[in-house]
């Protein structure tokens, strides 16, 4: 892993201007993804994880707007490129895989035709047939020649998602962004697809930004994890560190409340309350209304600070315990 990251996001802020007022879906988010690294972005609905992905790809649609920050890929700020330059980078530098393969595939064209379009868009149509067949074989499609001629509706959900992954990897991007890639699949098929993504990104040295609500997927796939809550990153750490020594009360509560297949019947420890209403956030720490450790100083907004090497946390109490942060500042 070299020093310059593939992706460096700084202070990214995306707002939606709705008739009921502005909602800041992504609020000053910063993180990096190293070469060949897998970073997990985890959070519940409304935490801003998907809008973060769309903002990186500059696919946020009206009434959403990227209002601040930089998104550097190999040192170039994507937010400053013109639309044509950005279009050329999607697919070649950064590939994408979304949750529902049926919305990513065109129902009226064969899979092979669509993959050929993706190659053509980047001027690689000469060896298209061979490239397509190799890409389909790579994702474990049994008969690539026949599969290239079939239409999305003739395939199962797992097969379609393999096609979408093959398309995402077709132009050999350095970074693949996958937003809930296996959420719509059955667990035995999820296991197949995750194994496939792990093998492909490993073999091609592709970095992966994996967005999911599923802590099990994170545990299986990621090198590092960033936990999002109410539009902000509240904790970030290497995967083993996060699961063994979570420091933010939200991460701790979330991990405890997940039923596990290796545990018998019984009541679960729960996080009280519901995910926040993004239109009416608490002042100060946004997790405060649900936090069992909340104190008066939590009325001030905490920063994301290093609590241990490579372990950042946005919580006054956790920062105090680690002996970082200055009381009363900010």
């Amino acid at each position, binding site marked *: 892993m070299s020093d310059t990251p593939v992706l460096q996001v700084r202070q990214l802020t995306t707002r939606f201007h709705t008739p009921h007022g502005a909602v800041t879906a992504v609020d000053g988010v910063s993180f990096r993804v190293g070469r060949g690294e897998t970073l997990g972005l985890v959070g*519940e*609905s409304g935490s801003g994880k998907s809008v973060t992905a769309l903002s990186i790809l500059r696919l946020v649609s009206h009434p959403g707007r990227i209002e601040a920050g930089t998104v550097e890929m190999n040192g170039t700020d994507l937010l400053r490129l013109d639309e044509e330059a950005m279009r050329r980078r999607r697919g070649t530098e950064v590939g994408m895989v979304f949750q529902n393969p049926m919305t990513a595939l065109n129902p009226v064209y064969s899979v092979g035709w669509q993959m050929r379009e993706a190659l053509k868009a980047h001027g690689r149509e000469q060896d298209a047939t061979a490239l397509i067949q190799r890409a389909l074989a790579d994702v474990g499609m049994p008969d690539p020649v026949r599969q290239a001629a079939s239409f999305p*509706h*003739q395939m*199962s959900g*797992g*097969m379609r998602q393999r096609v979408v992954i093959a398309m995402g990897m077709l132009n050999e991007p350095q970074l693949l962004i996958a937003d809930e890639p296996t959420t719509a699949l*059955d*667990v*035995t*098929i*999820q*296991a*197949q697809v995750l*194994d496939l993504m792990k093998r492909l990104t*490993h073999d091609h040295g592709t970095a992966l930004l994996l967005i999911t*609500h*599923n*802590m*099990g*997927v*994170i*545990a*299986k796939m990621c090198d590092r994890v960033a936990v999002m809550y109410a539009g902000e990153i509240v904790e970030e750490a290497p*995967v*083993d560190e996060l*699961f063994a020594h979570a420091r933010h009360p939200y991460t701790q*509560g*979330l*991990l405890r*409340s*997940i*039923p*596990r*297949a*290796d*545990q*018998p*019947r*019984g*009541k*679960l*420890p*729960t*996080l*009280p309350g*519901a*995910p926040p209403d993004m239109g009416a956030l608490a002042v100060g720490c946004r997790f405060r209304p649900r936090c069992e450790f909340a104190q008066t100083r939590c009325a001030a907004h905490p920063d994301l600070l290093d609590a241990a090497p490579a372990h950042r946390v946005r919580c006054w109490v956790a920062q105090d315990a680690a002996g970082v942060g200055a009381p009363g500042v900010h």
Partner: protein
Amino acid sequence: MSTEPGAPLLAVDQVVRHFKVSASAGSPGGTLRAVDGVSLTLAAGQTLGIVGESGCGKSTLARLVVGLLEPTAGVIRVRGGDIWEPGAAGRERRRQFQMVFQNPAGSMNPRRSVGASVAEPLQARGVRKTDDDVARMLELVGLSPDMASRMPHQISGGQQQRASIARALIARPALVVHDESIASLDISLQAQILNLLVDLQQSTGTAYLFISHDLAAVQAISHRVVVMYLGEVVETAPAQDFAQRPLHPYTIALRNATLTPDPAVERGRAKIILRGDVPSPMNPPSGCRFRTRCPLAAPICTQERPALRDAGEAHHVACHFADAARRLQDASAAPADEVAAC
């Protein structure tokens, strides 16, 4: 009433439900065997969990149990009485169960207040004054009684699901069928609702048929677990024994594919990756239906359909190999080394 005093609350006996599928572009049509000879029983006040992937017939089974669908063959009994007995007796039995669906927004009338929706099962029984019952019920599921006057779109998804649970319980049914009732909720809310269901069962004595694709959630709430595959029961056991001693290769693979929020466990796990997809229930494989994906498949599996056999401790399994668990472990040992190298 022809109910028998010693009979279980719910007895599903060799129930079959087929659907006719007409021919269309790309498919020749035929018979879809959604549920194909399922038997199970559930005692009052208990939770029976049903786990399986898409196409296993679990949702069709839910609809059969509450009487929304009529079986093609077989009998469903409530306290010993057939729910499809002609006349008033059958009709009355079909009203004893309630259901909670996956999508709470879709199962509430968007133009009626939450309170009006919750009161509906009582009104269907001719009760006129329902306000006090609604307020009490909303409180029981952890909602403020003021919520009764709100419209469904004015409350959150978690609150809507609590209201659906209140509606299911208000007429004091003996059984509530949950069909993926926590699947659309955020993780922190799933744990809250699972706990709420356990508490409500203790205070009301309602039995649950809890249907889900999530093995961990089913295990957290059930007294007994049933695993379905392609319309059939492949394994059933008390929850404790099921967690410690899964016997069917499909159950073992399902457990293996259910991810644990623990990176050390995930890395150390022996891999059992099932080949391919679930075959179509229009044309299920001969013999054992799991054989096309089973790492242990042998010639006998093609020829002979394995019967559910007693494996002790009220544990039943439909597999030709009594030692499937050990065989799978041996089979997965080799590829696991290869993965550890990268």
